[in-house]
């Protein structure tokens, strides 16, 4: 405290001693001095505070005045057209292309123009409105006249126009009609691979440019990658094969019409790399003109719905091979082990029965070949609840597929909360648990990959996946053999075609009613297959929604009659495209008779 040189001590000794001698309280002296000191300090503090408060007041006055002046400046300024903002984060004009595994373009950009108006610069706003309405019949003439003659200073007219339309607008000769450069996302193949590509729209938009933003599918899932300038516009290469995809869509569409199905989906997957070579969901749409999402009704009625990824269904008997494979893997059974199939099994209110009567007992391979519900239920009983759940979880059937589509998380499997012994039995033949066809594809790929887990991917891979071993290679091979037997001697005889050997399993499940219970006459029929049978390279899943085959006396809805022939046709068509060598069946020696005498 250098600023108070003359400082009286709080307890001056002379006064204290004096007070003590007189018998007074010396503390009173201290209190008095303290009070004086406080008063002095407060006076000083007050003077200082007064000055500082005045400074504060001046700052406030200045700040409020600045705001007022700025407000006045803004109010008096002329409205500007919306320029793209964000000096630091300019709109990335060049969005990366998307190409297929051979480098063929699936999505690219096209330069075009947007059209907007400055009504205050217009010479003849009414005529401009009428001519515009003539060029673009969907524009409302009255609305345009109102916009052009009103007080608005900026009006968007069209986001994208064609060169012809641009010339026509030029010919109006109205100076208040202006063009802004635009890039638009173009899908040159139209509806092919629509559900994978998804679609794109405009995000942030200004007069000079607009940001293209993925709205669904791979465009949305990889939006950041495609717009990242660090990638330098390098294309995103998918695992898809455009030719195979086109052929698959064509064949599947024909099959869907022939089988009177309301929807269909097919997935072709490389069994070793997990690459999705083709993924079709019908009905589809054109991503160049993406329809609006449905506001009412069930989402899977919309063409936007990706049945392969988002649609979760009870996929029926295709599950039986998992039960059999697990039983083989655990050593509970071998393909020849006999299982008691006397039924029906009664469980509370529920009964489990077979489609036909197959006798008293069947071997494990016959259970798969003939598709016996009771037989698989018996096997599942021996496997047990926890082990069955663990096995299905290892196959990836308890979580959404990890595929790179923005819709993938919405395809979460539906799993019963209380997994009882009955659930174990029904799940063993594919009821009481719903998964997407893509789940099924990756699970079958795991079997085809000799028991190593395969995860589906849409990006091109150059090396096989090395996933965890879900089941032993021996069990997986035995399961492959059984699947081949299903085709040669079981329910999938329509898949026993010339040139390619297919193994697979049919599955037919009644569709659940939204109100509870099941429809008697609506089914989901699935054929899950792998080929070539002796050394599976590819997995193909074909699922038809409400298919019915009517060539016979009674309508047939089982997968063996619906999904299987479609899948067989599909393989006949895409096998050569995949570069698979046909397996020439030995020519029957019809004209030569072997004589032995």
């Amino acid at each position, binding site marked *: 405290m250098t600023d108070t040189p003359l400082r009286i001590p709080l307890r001056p000794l002379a006064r204290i001693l004096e007070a003590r001698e007189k018998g007074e309280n010396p503390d009173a002296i201290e209190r008095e001095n303290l009070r004086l000191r406080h008063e002095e300090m*407060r006076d000083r503090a007050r003077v200082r505070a007064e000055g*500082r408060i*005045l400074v504060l*007041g001046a700052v406030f006055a200045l700040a409020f005045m600045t705001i*007022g002046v700025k*407000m006045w400046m803004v109010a008096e300024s002329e409205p500007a057209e919306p320029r793209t903002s964000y000096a630091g984060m300019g709109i990335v004009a060049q969005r990366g292309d998307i190409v297929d595994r051979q480098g063929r373009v699936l999505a690219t950009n096209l330069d075009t123009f947007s059209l907007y108006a400055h009504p205050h610069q217009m010479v003849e706003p009414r005529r401009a409105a009428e001519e515009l309405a003539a060029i673009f019949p969907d524009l409302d003439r009255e609305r345009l006249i109102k916009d052009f003659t009103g007080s608005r200073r900026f009006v968007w007219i069209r986001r994208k126009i064609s060169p012809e339309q641009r010339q026509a607008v030029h010919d109006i000769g109205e100076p208040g009609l202006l063009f802004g450069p635009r890039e638009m996302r173009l899908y040159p193949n139209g509806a092919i691979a629509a559900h994978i590509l998804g679609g794109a729209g405009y995000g942030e938009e*200004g007069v000079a440019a607009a940001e293209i933003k993925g709205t669904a599918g791979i465009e949305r899932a990889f939006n950041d990658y495609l717009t990242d300038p660090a990638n330098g516009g390098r294309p995103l290469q998918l695992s898809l094969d455009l030719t195979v995809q086109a052929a698959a869509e064509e064949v599947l569409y024909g099959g869907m019409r022939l089988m009177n199905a309301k929807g269909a989906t097919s997935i072709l997957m490389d069994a070793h790399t997990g690459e999705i070579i083709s993924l079709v969901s019908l009905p589809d749409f054109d991503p160049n003109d993406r329809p609006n999402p449905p506001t009412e009704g069930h989402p899977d009625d919309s063409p936007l719905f990706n049945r392969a990824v988002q649609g979760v269904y009870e996929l029926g008997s295709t599950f039986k091979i998992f039960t059999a494979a697990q039983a083989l893997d655990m050593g509970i059974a071998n393909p020849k082990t006999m299982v008691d199939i006397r039924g029906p099994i009664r469980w509370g209110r529920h009964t489990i029965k077979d489609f036909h009567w197959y006798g008293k007992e069947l071997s494990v391979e016959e259970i798969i070949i003939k598709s016996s519900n009771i037989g698989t239920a018996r096997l599942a009983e021996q496997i047990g609840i926890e082990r069955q759940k663990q096995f299905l979880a290892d196959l990836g059937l308890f979580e959404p597929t990890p595929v790179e589509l923005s819709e993938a998380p919405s395809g979460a499997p539906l799993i019963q909360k209380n997994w009882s012994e009955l659930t174990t039995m029904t799940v063993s033949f594919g009821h009481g648990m719903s998964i997407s066809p893509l789940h099924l594809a990756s699970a079958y790929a795991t079997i085809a990959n000799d028991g190593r887990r395969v995860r589906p991917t849409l990006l091109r891979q150059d090396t096989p996946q090395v996933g965890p071993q879900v089941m032993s290679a021996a069990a997986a091979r035995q399961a492959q053999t059984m699947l081949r037997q299903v085709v040669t001697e079981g329910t999938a005889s329509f898949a026993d075609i010339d040139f390619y050997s297919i193994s697979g399993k049919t599955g037919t499940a009644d569709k659940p009613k939204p109100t509870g219970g099941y429809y008697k006459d609506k089914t989901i029929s699935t054929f899950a297959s792998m080929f070539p049978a002796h050394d599976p390279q590819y997995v193909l899943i074909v699922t038809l929604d409400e298919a019915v085959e009517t060539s016979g006396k009674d309508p047939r809805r089982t997968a063996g009659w619906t999904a299987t022939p479609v899948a067989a046709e599909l393989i006949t068509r895409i096998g050569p495209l995949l570069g698979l060598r046909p397996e020439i069946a030995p020519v029957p020696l019809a004209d030569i008779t072997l004589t032995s005498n």
Partner: protein
Amino acid sequence: MTEMVYGALPVPDGEPILPKWWRTIDRWSLFTIIILFAIGLLLGLAASPPLAERNGYPPFHYVTRQAFFGTLAMIAMIVTSIMTPQSVRRLSVLGFMVAFAAIALLPVFGTDFGKGATRWYSLGFASLQPSEFLKPVFMVVTAWLLAAAQDLNGPPGRLWSFMLMTIIVGFLAAQPDFGQASLVLFGWGVMYFVAGASLKLLLAMAGGVVIFGVMAYNSSEHFARRIDGFLTSEIDPTTQIGYATNAIREGGLFGVGVGQGEVKMSLPDAHTDFIIAVAAEEYGLVLVAVIILLYLSLVLRSLLRLTRERDPFVRLAGVGLAATFGVQAMINLGVAVRLLPSKGMTLPFISYGGSSVIASGIAVGMLLALTRSRPQGEITDLLSGRSR
């Protein structure tokens, strides 16, 4: 005689409460507040019907609610302004404990209403933002601590208040609510400044705030986006600021006319954070100037009255309250004209918001209680021959 000696009878003060209140209150500031509230209702009539319709309420849902809460706020303000500085301080300390606990428990019991920041308690019929209530009582508690610290042998109030401020700013930044956090920080800084902080220390703290801001910019995307939006030279027309700028522009000097504005249709926060844009569009610069002058006059009058105050506690508390009130208004207005980066800050008494208006009422009530004219010992000064 006995009563006089032993003090058994209460000695009447000599003046009834209400006449004394009326005589000593800063009537100009009181009317300023009432006019601001009336302007708020008027603007609410314009700004909120489109929003009410979007949310499926009758068109004047928000206006009636605001009138109800505003009336409560006015009552709270008048009741608070009748209190003596001592009662203001005592009640504030109690209120501070409650509000502090409420803020601390927000992460557990609060809701974010889907806005990405947990700032509210949902009470069913209304929501409560405890930080609004914490602000004024924190100012009073800080003033108490700082004033006590000035005494010889006083408690280390500066350190305590600094710790309290740090904790509260931490809670607010965690919500995240950088607007309220900066208000609390600013209010504390102003009080510390007036309480006689050394300028070096203040400069060091300003540096600290800058460093904290840079850290927040780097760690919080929410924060960084707003700063980026502010720093760019041109305005993106599809942001709130863009709409607000256009609205002010459309309004010009005298506005487009009552009910003719369009910004309220497109701005989601037209009735709260950007109500000034509605004012500017419909009534023009004239009303905006009036609003600015009202806020400025309230702040300046309170500060001028406080320069004459001898009691350090009253002086500090008053300055803290007046400064936070003024800065809150300043930030809201500054955001609308892009002088400041975008923050969720209400315009006191004008913006819609139940807890906001009631908390502002209590805060201004305290301010009015502290700026009432009181004997300041002028005669004693004259007698003792001191200059002041």
